[in-house]
């Protein structure tokens, strides 16, 4: 009878399916954002599809960076921004830069923001969206080397503020599904 060999206590390893499932859950927000970019850039004839895209991207990046930064890592944000710039006709890198700034702001202030009321979060996002619109307008002016009409930037800021509750509701539903437990 051979002596019992000591085996180190090992934690139960995840199976391949579980790991794939986790990876899919992590990638889902970025994938949905990617899909939103593709669908909204398609020639569908939807009214205001081109104007709707930047607010939707800002809102979803803000939401996921606030509630689940691990599902919206900076690298994904960067590639989403570059993809947006390549499909749209904004100067290359501008959207990536702005989205990364929003991501950074949201993820560094998330422990303060998560305790706040929804309305206050909405207000903070409104400020961030307005700042992002102004920054985009300023960068566009810088690259074109003359002052552009600020009306589209104003419109974009208003769209940011207007679309956030809807986006937040849909994303909260997704978060709920991903977690399998209720979220605030």
């Amino acid at each position, binding site marked *: 009878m051979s002596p019992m060999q000591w085996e180190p206590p090992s934690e139960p390893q995840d199976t391949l399916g579980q790991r794939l499932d986790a990876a899919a859950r992590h990638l889902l927000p970025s994938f949905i954002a990617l899909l939103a970019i593709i669908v909204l850039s398609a020639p569908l004839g939807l009214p205001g599809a081109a104007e709707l895209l930047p607010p939707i991207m800002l809102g979803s990046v803000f939401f996921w960076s606030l509630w689940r930064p691990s599902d919206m890592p900076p690298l994904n944000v960067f590639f989403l*921004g570059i993809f947006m710039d390549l499909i749209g*006709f904004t100067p290359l890198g501008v959207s990536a830069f702005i989205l*990364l700034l929003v991501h950074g702001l949201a993820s560094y202030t998330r422990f303060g923001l998560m305790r706040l009321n929804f309305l206050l979060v909405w207000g903070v996002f409104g400020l961030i969206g307005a700042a992002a619109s102004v920054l985009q307008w300023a960068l566009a002016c810088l690259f074109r080397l003359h002052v552009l009409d600020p009306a589209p930037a104003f419109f974009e800021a208003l769209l940011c503020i207007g679309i956030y509750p809807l986006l937040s509701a849909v994303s909260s539903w997704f978060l709920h599904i991903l977690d399998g437990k209720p979220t605030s």
Partner: protein
Amino acid sequence: MLPVSIQVRQALGKLVLPALLLLSVGVMIAGQVEKRATEKARMAVAGALAPLWSMISQARAGVADVSNGIRQARHLSEENSRLEAENATLRRWYDVAVSLARENDALKTELHWVPEPSPSFVTGRVVADSGGIYARAVLLVAGMQSGIQTGNVALAANGLAGRVTEVGPHAARVLLITDISSRLPVMLESSHAPAIMAGDNSDTPRLLYYPQDTRPLEGERVVTGDQAGAFPAGIPVGTVHYTHPGTPVVQPFARLNQLTMLRVFDFRQAEIEPPEAPGHVPLSHPAHRPLALPFKTLLSPGQEG
């Protein structure tokens, strides 16, 4: 995974965001410098996404088709119910018409009504007529052998077309009502006022000699009158239309430019002669007026000359 300590990994994780921000600024500058490469990259991405976009727009077109079909189907049911209602109304009117026709028959039987002779007619194919003395005339492949006589009336499908002026053995020439030499006595249907319809080689003959106190109304129906005895009364001719104020013209019901068939009616109007009436001074035929003194006709026929 590289064997790095947790502290180093956390520090690297904190560095990712600033590094990416710097990278995006670098991309901005590079994009401004290398515009051609940027355009190429944009085109490559758009080219890769084009099949996806076409799929999306095809799906959208399919959805639009389906919704269009549903809307049309709903419209179809509305149309169907409207037609059913109209059909019910028409059925009621059909019953009314049948009962009125029966009542009319019964009343005619009661009154010992003498039926009007139904006119005989022949139908012939129209051949274009470029020759002849008339500008607006057609040649009909039906002639004397078919019983056509000079002065017969030619009708198109829905209105008066003209009258027969010359008859050959196998062909007849029909003078259309638009010819410049065509003068027809007509009657305005709503006011019963007589007028003369004169052709002028245009598509719309003019109305002349209507009473000054009853002017033709726009859209009023014009039918033939029986003043000269050339036409039976009541054949539909056309409607009144004013091209200019004060110059009424008739728009014929018959499409005189595209005649293919004509029915030629023999109304035998000329044979209806009023019977001799002693004591009656005929006014309509001054040529037949006896040259003798009027009081002679007052005498009885037996005492005459």
